[in-house]
């Protein structure tokens, strides 16, 4: 019998040597004449343990990690294929506390299945959701998504069912499903992991959305920084089409070109249409007039990839998880200076402190945590004093922050928060689409003003000016890029005022 050895093909696992490990394993297997085959899976999302190798034994899977190519010979000598002891042996992956604490709904298959195998997808519950949708009919499917309480996981948190209903209510004719995989927020990688680790879930989710609202064509817009994900999705779509599971639904990948603002839904539509990625004024809503002027549902990739599980197991099961108006689970991505960085899917409601300290294990550097940025570059910086904030859309909003796409970036006590505020404004200036004045000009003037504060010029007056500017950005910008840049800037000023007032050597300015 051939033993299966599972080595992640996920880009982050490859970035830390998974390909070298797979090659060393292949060579070792051949040299020793072992009956074993290597399967490249997605990642389980325990990135501090990557490359994490799993082997299928009579007692289930046994994991080893982090494995370097140089460890492979020793592992094979020790009896890797039988799951025998070794210094790198982690035991059953499901028993690793980081995984054991999770409730995996959206990520149920990621890291477990062969991502390019439709049979494997089916064997692990794939296409049960679409089958149930067909039983319920289009209106029943929309009602089910509404009842689940699923909200947009891209950041805005708008109820997915309401969006679908709006598009479904438009007169029949050409409609589109657009999947937003322009995952540009620093600290986030959930879309990427799903595309690489469970691409058929994305395909099934889009197919269900098309069926529910009466759209026969879907576009999947993936950022160009994700070459592995683009390849994985194109291969999986070809497989699905060949196997006939798309059932007439047209599906095409479109590749972004390095513009962060194209993650905003209307800029994304402009980009697919072949124009500069400039934001459109709303109304009209994309659900009324979106891509090529037709009714369009634009959903984040995590939102769409969660739909099959909701349909398969019922809205009630999903809605039973979570807290308040934040129902279901959120794939939280722990990143940056954190000891146990990785994908942590859990029902809404865990506190930020528990996530950072208990789940994440504090900083990677071993120094105290000073700040945590939640929700990407437009999210607020929270100090440990706010670690009692539960992970929940409304709770973060109440503290002038946002959950966003679920990224949590940890910083230790060496961080300079004035520098981070300056970066937020600089980033807004670099990525501004240029359509509205507050964002295009405000970001640049804001950065210049922070530079004056850093140089010690009229600190109080300039801090007041920044606050005034942030109000203009918040109230006067067309989209979240300008509208939310005040979150990181003002949270840095409010929670870390000392960093804006200390004396600096001229060389450290800017």
């Amino acid at each position: 019998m051939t033993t299966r050895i599972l080595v992640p093909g996920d880009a982050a696992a490859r970035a830390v040597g998974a390909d070298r490990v797979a090659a060393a394993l292949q060579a070792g297997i051949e040299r020793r004449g072992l009956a074993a085959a290597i399967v490249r899976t997605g990642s389980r999302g325990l990135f501090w343990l990557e490359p994490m190798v799993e082997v299928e034994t009579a007692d289930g899977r046994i994991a080893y990690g982090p494995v370097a190519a140089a460890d492979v010979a020793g592992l094979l000598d020790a009896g890797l294929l039988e799951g025998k002891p070794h210094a790198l042996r982690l035991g059953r992956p499901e028993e690793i506390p980081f995984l054991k604490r999770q409730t995996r709904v959206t990520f149920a298959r990621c890291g477990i299945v062969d991502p390019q195998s439709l049979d494997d997808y089916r064997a692990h519950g794939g296409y049960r959701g679409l089958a149930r949708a067909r039983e319920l009919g289009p209106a029943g499917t929309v009602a089910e998504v509404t009842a689940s309480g699923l909200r947009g996981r891209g950041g805005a948190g708008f109820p997915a069912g309401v969006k679908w209903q709006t598009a479904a209510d438009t007169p029949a004719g050409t409609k589109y499903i657009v999947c937003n995989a322009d995952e540009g927020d620093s600290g986030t990688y959930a879309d990427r992991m799903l595309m690489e680790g469970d691409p058929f879930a994305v395909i099934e989710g889009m197919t269900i959305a098309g069926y529910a609202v009466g759209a026969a064509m879907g576009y999947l817009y993936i950022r160009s920084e994700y070459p592995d994900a683009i390849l994985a999705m194109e291969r999986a779509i070809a497989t699905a089409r060949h196997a006939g599971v798309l059932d007439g639904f047209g599906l095409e990948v479109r590749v972004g070109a390095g513009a962060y603002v194209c993650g905003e839904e209307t800029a994304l539509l402009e980009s697919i249409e072949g124009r500069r990625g400039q934001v459109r004024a709303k109304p009209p809503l994309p659900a009324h007039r979106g891509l090529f002027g037709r009714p369009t549902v634009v959903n984040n990739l995590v939102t769409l990839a969660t739909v099959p599980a909701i349909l398969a197991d019922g809205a009630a099961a999903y809605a039973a998880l979570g807290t308040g108006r934040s129902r279901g689970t959120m794939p939280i991505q722990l990143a940056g200076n954190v000891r146990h960085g990785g994908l942590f899917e859990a029902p809404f409601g865990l506190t930020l402190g528990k996530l950072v300290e208990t789940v994440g294990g504090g900083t990677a550097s071993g120094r105290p945590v000073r700040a945590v940025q939640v929700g990407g570059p437009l999210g607020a910086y929270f100090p440990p004093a706010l670690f009692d904030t539960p992970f929940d859309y409304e709770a973060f909003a109440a503290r002038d922050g946002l959950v966003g796409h679920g990224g949590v970036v940890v910083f230790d006590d060496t961080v300079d928060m004035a520098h981070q505020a300056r970066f937020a404004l600089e980033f807004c200036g670099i990525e501004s689409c240029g359509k509205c004045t507050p964002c295009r000009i405000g970001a640049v003037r804001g950065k210049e003003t922070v530079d004056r504060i850093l140089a010690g010029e009229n600190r109080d007056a300039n801090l007041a000016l920044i606050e005034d500017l942030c109000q203009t950005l918040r109230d006067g910008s067309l989209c979240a890029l300008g509208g939310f840049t005040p979150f990181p800037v003002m949270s840095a000023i409010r929670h870390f005022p000392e960093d804006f007032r200390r004396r600096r050597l001229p060389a450290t300015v800017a």
Partner: protein
Amino acid sequence: MGLGSAARSGVAVAAWSEAEGSAIIGRHIGRPGPLLPILHDLQTAFGCVSAEAVVAVAEALNLTRAEVHGVVGFYRDFRRAPAGRHVLKLCRAEACQSMGGEVLARQLLDRFAIGWDGTTADGRLTVEATYCLGLCACAPAAMLDGQPIGRLDRATLDDIVREVEP
């Protein structure tokens, strides 16, 4: 430690050819929203979207040159001139900042005596700033000729330097 199993000889590109350019454009012309796929494919073939390419695309899609130029200029990915033989994207976003990415980036740029988005005098390397590669739990992160590199440190930087040696 080497960087990876994939052989990295750098990116081979051809000089602009009207015939080949037209063939690439022709492959997309019937699609809805063909412009970005065309520009991506032209850049893959020719290493950049040159002035000649802009003219050819504008004519084929019945757009003005200004419209095409405006799109090329908007997106960071599209180049007006070919990059160096190797392209290194270094992430400058927050997760990588939190792990000391800016200091490492500065060391690398100084080593090659170039600035952000600059190309070495011998044309062997272009270093581009990027804002997130989705490798944020393995920060600082980079991408060399499309291959991801995580947990960047002095040793991996040395590997990169060796990798791009002429």
